[in-house]
C-alpha cells in the first residue's frame, strides 16, 4: 500500500514537473504568446463585422453589394458561417497552425540534444512515458490557444448574432486533432533528424502535399459529378429526341413530319454521349485513385470542415448557395453567356443537381472514416517516432 502510494505520488510529481517545464518552455518562446495575442485579436475583429438587410457592415459601415444580407441569412447563421469558413480554416487551420508548429516544433529536437537527453533519461521515468507526456502537453497548449479563441468567438457570436452557440467549442478538439496530424509528423522528423528547422520545413512540405491531395480530391469529385450530370443530361436529350421520333413514327403516314433533323441531332448526341461517358469514366477513375491515395493520409481539411457540417444548418447554406447561383446566372445573362448547360463539363459544375451530388458524395463522407483514418495515420507515425525514441542510443 505504501509502495503503491509512493509510486503514484512519484508519477504525479513527474507529470506535474513535465507540465510546468512545457509551460516554461513555451512561455520562453515569444512566438507562442504572439500567436495567442493574434488569436484574440482576430476573434475580436469578428466583433466589428455585422450584417443587416442591406449587406455586411464593418465597424458600423455597410458594404453594399456583398453576397450576404440579413434577409438571406439570419445574423446568427452568418456569424457561425464566418467562424467556420473564415476563422477556423484561415486563421486556426492555417496561420495559427503554422505559428504553433514553429512554436512547438523544437520541443523534441531540443530535448534529444546531446547533454540534454541524458538529464531526462537518467531519471526513474520510462522513455515511452516521457515521449507521450511531452507530446500530449504540446497538444494541450495548442488546445489552450483554440479554447481561448473559441471563447472570444463564442462571446462575439452571442453578442452580435444573438445566439449562444456552445457547439463553437467543438473547434477545440477538432483543431487540436487537425494540428496533431501534422505535429506527429513533425515529431518523427525531429527525432530522426534532431533538427528543428528540418522537421518544421518538411512538415510544411507534407502539409502542402496533403492540401494538394485535398484539392485534387475536391476538384475530381466536383468534375466527376459534373461529367456524370452531363451524361445524364445528354441521355435526357437523346430520350427526348427519340420520343419525338417515335411519336412521329406512330402517326399515320400522311400526318408524319420530316424528322431528319431530329434523327441527325439524336445521332450526333449519341456520338457525343460516348465521348461524355468516357470522360466521366476517366474522371471517376482518377477521383477513385486520389481517394485511395488519400485514405491512409490524415484528412486535415476534411477534419476542419466538420465544423461547418456540425455548426451550419443545411437550409442556411442552401439559401446562400441558391442565391449565389442565381447571381451568377444573372451575371452570365448580362454578359450574353448562356445560362443553360452546354457541352463543356465546367458548365455543369454550377447546376443544382451537380451540387447536390457533390454534397452527397463529398459532404456525406462519414465522420468515423475521416477521423478514424487520420488517427490511424497519427498512431502509425507516432508509434514509429516513439519506437525510434525508445530504442535509440543517445
Amino acid at each position: 500500500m505504501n509502495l503503491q502510494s509512493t509510486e503514484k505520488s512519484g508519477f504525479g510529481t513527474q507529470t506535474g514537473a513535465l507540465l510546468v517545464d512545457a509551460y516554461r518552455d513555451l512561455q520562453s518562446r515569444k512566438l507562442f504568446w504572439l500567436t495567442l495575442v493574434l488569436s484574440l485579436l482576430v476573434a475580436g475583429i469578428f466583433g466589428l463585422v455585422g450584417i443587416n438587410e442591406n449587406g455586411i457592415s464593418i465597424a458600423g459601415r455597410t458594404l453594399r453589394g456583398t453576397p450576404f444580407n440579413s434577409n438571406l441569412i439570419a445574423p446568427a447563421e452568418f456569424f457561425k458561417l464566418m467562424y467556420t469558413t473564415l476563422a477556423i480554416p484561415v486563421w486556426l487551420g492555417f496561420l495559427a497552425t503554422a505559428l504553433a508548429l514553429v512554436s512547438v516544433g523544437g520541443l523534441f529536437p531540443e530535448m534529444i540534444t546531446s547533454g540534454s537527453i541524458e538529464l531526462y533519461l537518467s531519471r526513474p521515468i520510462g522513455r515511452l512515458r516521457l515521449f507521450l507526456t511531452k507530446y500530449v502537453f504540446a497538444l494541450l497548449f495548442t488546445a489552450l490557444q483554440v479554447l481561448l479563441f473559441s471563447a472570444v468567438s463564442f462571446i462575439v457570436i452571442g453578442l452580435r448574432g444573438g445566439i449562444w452557440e456552445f457547439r463553437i467549442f467543438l473547434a477545440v478538439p477538432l483543431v487540436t486533432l487537425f494540428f496533431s496530424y501534422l505535429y506527429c509528423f513533425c515529431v518523427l522528423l525531429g527525432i530522426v533528424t534532431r533538427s528543428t528547422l528540418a522537421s518544421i520545413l518538411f512538415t510544411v512540405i507534407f502539409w502542402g502535399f496533403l492540401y494538394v491531395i485535398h484539392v485534387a480530391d475536391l476538384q475530381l469529385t466536383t468534375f466527376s459529378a459534373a461529367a456524370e450530370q452531363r451524361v445524364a443530361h445528354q441521355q435526357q436529350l437523346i430520350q427526348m429526341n427519340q420520343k419525338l421520333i417515335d411519336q412521329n413514327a406512330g402517326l399515320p403516314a400522311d400526318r408524319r413530319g420530316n424528322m431528319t433533323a431530329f434523327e441527325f441531332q439524336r445521332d450526333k448526341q449519341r456520338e457525343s454521349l460516348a465521348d461524355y461517358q468516357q470522360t466521366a469514366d476517366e474522371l471517376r477513375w482518377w477521383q477513385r485513385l486520389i481517394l485511395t491515395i488519400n485514405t491512409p493520409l490524415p484528412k486535415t481539411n476534411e477534419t476542419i470542415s466538420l465544423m461547418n457540417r456540425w455548426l451550419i444548418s443545411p437550409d442556411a447554406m442552401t439559401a446562400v448557395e441558391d442565391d449565389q447561383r442565381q447571381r451568377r446566372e444573372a451575371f452570365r445573362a448580362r454578359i450574353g453567356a448562356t445560362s443553360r448547360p452546354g457541352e463543356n463539363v465546367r458548365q455543369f459544375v454550377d447546376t443544382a443537381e451537380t451540387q447536390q451530388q457533390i454534397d452527397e458524395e463529398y459532404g456525406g463522407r462519414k465522420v468515423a472514416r475521416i477521423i478514424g483514418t487520420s488517427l490511424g495515420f497519427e498512431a502509425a507515425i507516432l508509434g514509429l517516432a516513439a519506437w525510434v525514441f525508445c530504442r535509440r542510443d543517445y
Partner: protein
Amino acid sequence: MPDASLAINLTNVEKVYRGKVYALRGVNMRVNRGEVFGLLGPNGAGKSTLVKIMMTVVKPTHCQGQLLGEEVGHKATLARVGYLPENHRFPRYMTGRQILDFFGALSQTPRTKRKARIDELLETVGMTSWADKKISIYSKGMMQRVGLAQALIHDPDLILLDEPTDGVDPVGRREIRDVLLSLKRKGKTIFINSHLLSELELICDRVAILIGGKVAKQGTIDELAIARQHYYLDLSQAPDPAILESIRRCLPEGITLAANHSSLQILTTDAAHVQPVIDLLRSAQIVIKRVHPVRPSLEELFIEAVGHSSAVGAKPGAQP
C-alpha cells in the same frame, strides 16, 4: 545473488555501435558502497558509454550487472542514483533554482523535500546568489556547480559524475572536492569519470583505467603503484662500477637496482632493503644527499597503462 556490499557490480559489459565499432569489450568492474571510485581513460576509451549504460541512456549490447543491488536498466533504481553528464545542457529558460526543482521532481522527490534541499544545495555549491537568475547567463563553472547540485537534489546513494570539474576554476575545484569528501563521509558512493588525474588522486579510494573498451587496471592507487614504488638515493657523486656491483650483491633476490649518474633507484617498498646499500655507500666515502621512497603518481601509472596498451594494439573503436 547481488552482493549487498557493492554499489556497482558489472560483468562483461559490451557495447558495439553500428558499423561494428566496439566501444566496450567486456568490462568487469566492482565499486564498493561508500567509496570514491575513479574511472580514467584516454579519449574514446568508452568511459562515457559505460556511465551512460548504467544510467540507461545507452543500451548495452551485452551487460550483466547490478546498480545498488538491482539489474542495470531498472528504471526505479535511478531514483537513488544522481548523475552529472559531461557537457550537460540545461533548458536555458530556467533559473538555477528551477533546474533543481524540475530535476528533483523528475527523480520523484516530493515537493517539501525538494524545497528544503534546494537552498541547502545551492549554499553547498556556492550558487545561492545566482539561484534566481536564468542559467543562460551562467558561466561554465557555474553550470557545473548547478549540475552537481541537481545530481544531489534527491539525496542519492550513488552519484555518477562525468567530468565534474570541467571548466571549474581551482577554488571551485577544491570546493567540489570538499563536497565530494563530505558526501563520502555520509556514506555515499561516488563514481567519477575524469581526465584530471591529480584531482582523482586526491579523493579516490580506488580507480580503474579503461583503455580501448577494456579495463586495463583496477584497484587502489597503492595497489596499482606497488610494482613501481622504489627508494630514490641522491648522491654527491656517481659510484664506480665495483661499488655498484657490491650493492647489487647485497640486495635480496628480485630487488633491482637502477643507477643514473649520481642517483640510484632501488625497486622496493621495504626500507630494510635500503639499509645495507646506505652502509656500503658510506663506507665508500660517498655522501648521501637524500633518501626517500617514491610512489608513482596516478598520471605516471595512467601514461604507462596507455603506453602499454598502445604497444599491444588495443585501439579504441577497433574490432577485437
